[in-house]
Structures are given as structure tokens and as C-alpha cells.
């Protein structure tokens, strides 16, 4: 399949596809972090996670519109405001959903699956009614347009780089929160043994609500980042949810590092192979490899091993 390319062309192709893969990686990481927190820590499979992401994207869209109309002078910085708003709105909705719905279904994983799927349909239709079925895009501020030219053949878009920085800093923030803060310790205690965590004084219901809100909020950040590299439609979330689950399961549900490594592997594999093969062939190959590895390591790439 490499016929007809010179070696320098091949190098450039790998570099550019590799970078395109990195943008995909960033969205995967942001989506998967939220999902991994909710799925890994609470065992809830949130089918509406993609719609939370889209909520963040629409929030960004509205914010950019607002800045264009009323604060054109500050347009260059709207994205940061949008990101914070997206996080707040999505986590507030997440907390509400947890309180209304999820908390009643903790011992019924299949019902949660159905309920959150229903929620995702409701949210999609709401977006369609409010924003219309057409995809919307945001205008990038000037400093985010353009690209670095590394060589004549290799160009790296600035918006892609920016999204990557957001993804990595969010990952670091989540890591610190989970492994260095008091909240994180409580979360991990609840994950390992809920009744026992209660019996040393942890309010597990409160931890669940905070965790669900945090996961949804990160989905919101993912949505804000998503607008930088693609346009947003009511069902854009659907395109990512399956891949994101793949990332989470492949990485090992309770390991953040595993999630990041598997997001990197899957996105790179897909984006590089898509250039040479068709998109569906690339997916088939990726899935085969993932299934193969999961048969050897059913707990995912990086599950911790201790006596239980």
C-alpha cells in the first residue's frame, strides 16, 4: 500500500496524519476522561455523554455569537469564557440528571443504559428544535487560524495544537484531582468498597453526585474544544460515543493513564491507516487489534494488580 510514494513523502504523510491523529486523540481524551470517571468510578454507562459534549459545543457557539455582537473587542478571548461556561452548564445539568434519574438506578446497570440512551434522544431532539438540524460552526479568533510550517510538506494547524494543549491540561488537572486531593481519595474509596467507605464516614451519595457532575463538565470542555476543529450538529455526539467507550474499556476502566494511552493508540492507528486504506477498513483493523488485546488482558491495558 505504500507504492508510489517516495520515502520523504511517506515521512511527511506519517507526520501530518500523525498530527491529525493527535487532534482526534485530544477529543478522545477529553470525552474519555469524563466517561472513564463516570463509568470507571460509578459503574454507570452514560449513553448521553456525547450529548453532554454537544451541549458544551452549543454553549461555545452561543458564547462566540454573544461576543461577536456585544464584545467584538474581546473576541480573541471568548474561547476561555466559553470553556468555563461549558464546564459549568454541563456539570450543573449532570448533577441534575444524577439527582433525578441515575441515583435511583445504581443497582440496575442495564436500566441505566436504557435511561441514559433515552436521555440522549431527548437531548438530541431538543438541540434539533432549538438550534435546527443544520450543523453550526464557530468563527475562530484570528490567533488560532493558520498553521506552523515545519517543512515544505509538513504543516501543523494552530487550532489543533491548541485543542491538544487543552486536552493535556485537563488530563493533568483530573489526575491531580483524583490522586492528590481529598475528594479523589474519597472517590477511590467509594469505588473500591461503597458500604465500607460509608462506614468510615464518606458520604457516598454526595460523592456520586459530584463525580457525575465532574464527568459531565469535562464532556462540556470536550465540546468546547470540539468546536475548534469541527462543526456541531444535533447528532455529532453519536459519532464519538462508541469510539470513546472503546477507548475507556481498552484502557482499563479504573486507570486514567490507561485511558490516555489507549486514546493515543486508537486515534493514531485510525488516522494513519485511514490515509492508506478506506475508513471502514481502518476501523476493522483497529477493532480487531483491540479485541485481540482485550482477550489477553480482559481488565484493559493498565489495570492495577493487588490482592483483593
Amino acid at each position, binding site marked *: 500500500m505504500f507504492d508510489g510514494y517516495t520515502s520523504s513523502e511517506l515521512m511527511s504523510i506519517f507526520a501530518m496524519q500523525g498530527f491529525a491523529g493527535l487532534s482526534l486523540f485530544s477529543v478522545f481524551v477529553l470525552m474519555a476522561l469524563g466517561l472513564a470517571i463516570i463509568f470507571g468510578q460509578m459503574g454507570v454507562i452514560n449513553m448521553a455523554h456525547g450529548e453532554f459534549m454537544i451541549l458544551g459545543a452549543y454553549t461555545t457557539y452561543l458564547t462566540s455569537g454573544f461576543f461577536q455582537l456585544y464584545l467584538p473587542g474581546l473576541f480573541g478571548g471568548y474561547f476561555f469564557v466559553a470553556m468555563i461556561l461549558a464546564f459549568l452548564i454541563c456539570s450543573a445539568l449532570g448533577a441534575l440528571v444524577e439527582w433525578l434519574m441515575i441515583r435511583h438506578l445504581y443497582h440496575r446497570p442495564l436500566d441505566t443504559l436504557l435511561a441514559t440512551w433515552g436521555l440522549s434522544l431527548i437531548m438530541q431532539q431538543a438541540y434539533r428544535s432549538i438550534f435546527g438540524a443544520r450543523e453550526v460552526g464557530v468563527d475562530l479568533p484570528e490567533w488560532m487560524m493558520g498553521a506552523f510550517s515545519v517543512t515544505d510538506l509538513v504543516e501543523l494547524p494552530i487550532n489543533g495544537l491548541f485543542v491538544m494543549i487543552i486536552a493535556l491540561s485537563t488530563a493533568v488537572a483530573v489526575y491531580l484531582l483524583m490522586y492528590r486531593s*481529598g475528594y479523589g481519595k474519597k472517590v477511590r474509596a467509594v469505588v473500591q468498597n461503597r458500604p465500607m467507605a460509608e462506614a*468510615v464516614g*464518606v458520604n457516598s451519595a454526595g460523592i456520586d453526585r459530584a463525580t457525575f457532575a465532574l464527568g459531565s463538565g469535562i464532556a462540556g470542555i470536550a465540546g468546547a474544544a470540539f468546536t475548534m476543529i469541527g462543526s456541531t450538529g444535533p447528532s455529532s455526539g453519536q459519532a464519538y460515543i462508541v469510539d470513546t467507550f472503546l477507548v475507556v474499556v481498552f484502557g482499563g476502566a479504573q486507570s486514567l493513564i490507561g485511558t490516555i494511552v489507549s486514546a493515543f493508540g486508537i486515534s493514531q492507528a485510525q488516522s494513519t491507516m485511514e490515509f492508506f486504506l478506506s475508513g471502514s477498513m481502518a476501523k476493522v483493523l483497529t477493532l480487531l487489534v483491540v479485541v485481540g488485546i482485550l482477550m489477553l488482558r480482559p481488565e484493559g491495558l493498565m489495570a492495577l494488580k493487588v490482592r*483483593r
Partner: protein
Amino acid sequence: MLSVKHHSVAYGQSTIIEDLNLDVGKNEIVAVVGRNGMGKTTLMKSLVGMTPSKSGEVSLDGIDLSNLKSFQRVRAGVGFVPQGRMIFPTLTVRENIETGLAAVGEKKVPEDLYKLFPVLKEMQNRRGGNLSGGQQQQLAIARALATRPKVLLLDEPTEGIQPNIIKDIARTLRRIRDERGLSILVSEQVLSFVMDAADRILVIEKGVIVHEENREEADQDKIASYLAV
């Protein structure tokens, strides 16, 4: 101190504990002994709120605990060391203790806990799951003490632990009681441990207390006959 009145616990139709009354005085160590399946664990779990009780009243220092959830009971002063220890396996030793500290809003593991269990200080960065059974038992006790309890509940602390360490645990319990002035309620099957540790001994059979004795005048043979199968 801890007062339990007309306490009943049932799993569906089968009543495990029926109309049980007991009191633990200040600074007292009370042991509940009984064979397997007589309701010791159910009693302990229901006192800390892990298992809902059907009726009755549990109060600590005059505060009614009956309607509180598990974590609220812990914050009100009930410390719990479960059967099988149940430490958090992937948290480090220090983090395990810190989960208990969070209940009372503290951050740093107090030195006196490490003084009580020096081995935990040595191993503070190891994962809890990689400790031996005896060390895990010490960790579970330290984690419960971190919540600054007024009464400490221990469910079969000697299970699966070698005999010379059982003696250590008995000594540790008395030391904790003397140093911290708390009350201890411990369920047990090992008679020698009970004779070492307890001030007062209750025998539980089919969810009812059938016999009660102070340790000084305790008739070992009689209690042993309750434990015999």
C-alpha cells in the same frame, strides 16, 4: 454510652436479631460471643448502619442514631472495623487512614496512630492490598480510630490471624481504651482473646443475648459450652 434498646434486624422474612438490648459503658470493653450464624456480624453491621434495622433504638451519648445513615453515624462517633478487614486495596496505607480522617475534617495522619501501629508508618506508601492479614487488621483499626470514635465496633478481629498476633490485638485494644478513653464492642469466637481483652462478656444465640458475665467471675467452661457446636 452506647445504648441499644429493643433492636431488631431482619432480612426480608427471616428475623436475625430480635428485641436485643445492650449497653456499653464509658471506657468499657464488651465482647459479644457466639457461634457462626447467631447474628454477631448482623448486629455489628446494623449498629453502624450498613444493614438497616427493623425496629428499636440505638443511641450514643444520648444522641439517637436510629435514623442516621452510615456515614452520619460515623461522624457522630461510631468507629467500625468490619469482619474481613475490608481495607481499600488499591489505596496506599496512608490514604486508607486518610479516608477515615476526612470524616472529622482532618488532613494529616496523627503521630499517635503511627505510634500505636509502627508497622503502618514503615509501610505508609504501600498499597493496602499488598499487606499481610495481620497488618491489614492493624490498618483497619487505625482507619476506624482516625474517625475519632467514642465507641469502636470490631467484628471478629482475630479471624484468620495467627495466635501470637491475636494476643497483640487484645493488648492493643486495652491500650487504645486506656489511652483514648473510648468504649469498645467486639464480636468474637476465640475465647482466649475474649478473656484477654474484655471487661464484660455477652453470649448471643439466635439473635438474643442469652448469657452475661463480668470477666473476673466468668466461668470459661460455661461460655465455652455456648461456643461448642
